[in-house]
């Protein structure tokens, strides 16, 4: 059934500006695919409503079980027991794996999961497989996600009694554009068109903006600007945003994010309970998978209990002669995960600095996500923001998907007679985008935390006399050294007329539209000329597929500095 619903999988198709031809505007639904849980919400004409599956759940586990011929996802599947997900037949944590290469530490950490994650450490996509009839059957995170989304779409179509095609998808702040294309590809495979992508805290910001609107209407006046910090910690990712809200307009001032979350807390505690865990499971036989499952469930339960109790008794028989019988208290748990919590603190501080906001000027601090119940998380956010109380008007698990559904209605052009949709989020870029220039440096053209849509331009020049061609390599990231950033793509400017170095003006213009599509326009103009030498290039990014680390190395090896560019200094112009 899942296979039948597949449509053409193509990167370029997913974000195309095509409008549906139906006479009624299709209201895009909001989808939050979490590392651990997933939910769908829609605008019902007067407010946002969450969809429930056949078992009346709003939150559905994100996993797909491979059995015989038909894989089944966690949307409607009834689990007889948690261990079923951990039997090796189910693939989960897709959101942590999608669009990552096998040198990524996150992929390596995923080797502790009960399904097969194999790496060759050469910078290509990892090998992922599920255990079906005692065989490892290969799949990809995109495929798993697509199967899950097909189920999700079918569920939504049954309940909404209409075809569903457009969605607003929430993503982590730290997702690279390459990861975004992978997740969009998964959506395309499931026949879904991503109308808008929203970093999770910005979806929460939109919901917050709506609540403030309502409050202003009720209190008459006091429509002044409110600054809020939103901290979102889920199973796979942690995001922070600072937003300034007034009159229903939420302007994202800064974003920060990292691939840390509940999964890391869980793995650290598992390693703490069983120090030789990694060597114990390395052979990955049926028994090892069982051990992984048992330990994982016991550790998960313990972490949940530690949110409400000071200490917890862990009793688990791993069946191979190893028994774990231990009391873990909250301090111990916090100590084991100290690095994670410190990283969270750093993200909040960084986000406040980037937004140029003092903690004293924050009107509200909003904590959402699956980890928001953990006392240490609450305390660290309160501590950095120097506050006693957190904003309590928001459901910590549903906020992101509700925000996405609001955005879906707004971006679909729906208006509400009561003004509930008189809203706008002005998104910001989460990472710098620029090109390789001045040797091996990353020269940003669009800086991070720039409001979108945006268009920026920078002029470069040649580094050799009579250099006929120039290579434009586009990167995304925060690092100075170019290789540490994500490569998005590359192309050549050709036909540069013979001229002394530093003379030709190579204009590189970057453009991000409201749907977050990045285009790079580049061409060369000779000083004094009014028209470009050759037609400009317009390239949609990213263009690279897997193995982008290799591309950078190969380009460097093949061309050395022959095609390099450097930033044109102002004084050289005249």
């Amino acid at each position, binding site marked *: 059934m899942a296979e039948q619903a597949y449509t053409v999988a193509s990167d370029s198709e997913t974000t195309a*500006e095509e409008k549906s031809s139906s006479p009624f505007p299709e209201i895009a639904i909001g989808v939050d695919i979490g590392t651990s849980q997933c939910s769908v919400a829609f605008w019902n004409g007067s407010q946002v409503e969450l969809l429930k599956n056949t078992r009346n759940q709003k939150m559905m586990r994100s996993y797909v079980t491979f059995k015989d011929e038909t894989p089944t996802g966690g949307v409607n599947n009834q689990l007889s027991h948690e261990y079923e997900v951990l039997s090796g037949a189910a693939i989960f944590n897709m959101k942590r794996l999608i669009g990552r290469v096998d040198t990524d530490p996150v992929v390596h950490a995923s080797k502790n999961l009960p399904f097969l994650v194999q790496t060759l450490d050469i910078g290509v996509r990892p090998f992922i497989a599920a255990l079906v009839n005692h065989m490892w059957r290969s799949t990809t995170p995109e495929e798993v996600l697509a199967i899950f989304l097909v189920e999700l779409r079918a569920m939504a179509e049954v309940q909404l009694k209409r075809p569903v095609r457009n969605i607003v998808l929430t993503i982590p702040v730290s997702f690279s554009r390459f990861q975004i294309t992978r997740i969009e590809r998964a959506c395309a495979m499931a026949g879904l068109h991503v109308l*808008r992508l929203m970093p999770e805290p910005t979806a929460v910001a939109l919901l917050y903006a709506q609540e403030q609107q309502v409050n202003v209407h009720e209190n008459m006046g006091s429509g002044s*600007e409110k600054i809020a910090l939103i901290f979102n910690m889920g199973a796979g990712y942690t995001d922070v945003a600072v937003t300034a809200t*007034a*009159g*229903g*307009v939420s302007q994202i001032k800064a974003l920060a994010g990292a691939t840390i979350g509940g999964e890391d807390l869980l793995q650290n505690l598992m390693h703490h309970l069983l120090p030789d865990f990694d060597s114990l499971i390395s052979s990955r036989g049926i028994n090892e998978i069982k051990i992984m499952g048992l330990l994982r469930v016991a550790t998960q339960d313990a972490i949940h209990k530690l949110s409400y109790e000071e200490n917890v008794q862990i009793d688990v028989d791993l069946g191979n002669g190893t028994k774990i019988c231990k009391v873990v208290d909250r301090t111990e748990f916090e100590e084991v995960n100290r690095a994670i919590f410190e990283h969270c603190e750093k993200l909040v501080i960084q986000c406040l600095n980037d937004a140029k906001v003092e903690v004293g000027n924050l009107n509200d601090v909003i904590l959402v996500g699956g980890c928001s119940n953990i006392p240490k998380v609450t305390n660290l956010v309160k501590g950095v923001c120097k506050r006693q109380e957190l904003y309590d008007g928001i459901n910590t698990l549903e906020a992101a998907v509700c925000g996405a559904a609001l*955005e879906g209605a*707004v*971006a679909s*052009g729906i208006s509400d007679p009561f003004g509930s949709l*008189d809203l*706008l*989020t*002005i998104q910001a870029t989460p990472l710098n985008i620029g090109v390789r220039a001045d040797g091996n440096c990353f020269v940003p053209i669009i800086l991070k935390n720039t*409001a979108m*849509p*945006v*268009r*920026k*331009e*920078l*002029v470069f020049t040649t580094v050799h006399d009579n250099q006929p061609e120039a290579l434009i390599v586009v990167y995304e990231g925060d690092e100075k050294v170019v290789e540490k950033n994500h490569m998005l793509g590359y192309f050549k400017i050709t036909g540069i007329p013979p001229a002394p170095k530093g003379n030709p*003006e190579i*204009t590189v*213009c970057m*453009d991000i*539209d*409201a749907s977050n599509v990045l*285009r790079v*326009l580049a*061409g060369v*103009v*000779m*000083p*004094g*000329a*009014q*028209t*470009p030498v050759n*037609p*400009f290039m*317009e390239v949609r990014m990213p263009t690279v597929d897997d193995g982008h680390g290799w591309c950078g190395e190969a380009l460097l090896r093949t061309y050395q500095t022959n095609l390099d560019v450097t930033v*044109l200094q*102002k004084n050289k*112009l*005249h």
Partner: protein
Amino acid sequence: MAGTLAAPTLLHFSGDNQLLHAAKSISSSTTSLPRRRFCATALHAVADPTPVMAESRRPASLYEVLGLSKNASSVEIKSAYRSLAKMHHPDSSESTDGGDFIRIHKAYTTLSDPSARALYDLSLRAAAKMRDRRRFEYAAAPASYQKGYCTPRRWETDQCW
């Protein structure tokens, strides 16, 4: 005077040229490229120190973009920006391609930052005096006063679109 406006980088974006034709024909209407943005971004990136500003090419000051008077308060600037953003952001209006919003946002970025605004005001005043001076030629202007304009510095280049 208009001829001296431009470093070549500016001119190739400001006239009818192949790039724009090509870009226009390739892109759908939603992604076409508003010309003057290129001009402005080009100026911004190169930080062109050319001191002369062509009057004929000067469409609107940043204040005019936001529909404000020159002594608008920071609260007024913010609320004007917000209401204009609601009208011109591609999310809330189907007809725009984002170019209007980019212009509005740029005006807001400058005017909401007190120091950037002060510099911009200075440059506006200098530009206005330049115009006056040209109108009255050099008549009656004291030499020292005139000298002050011989090298008028342009602090903010944004107004040149």
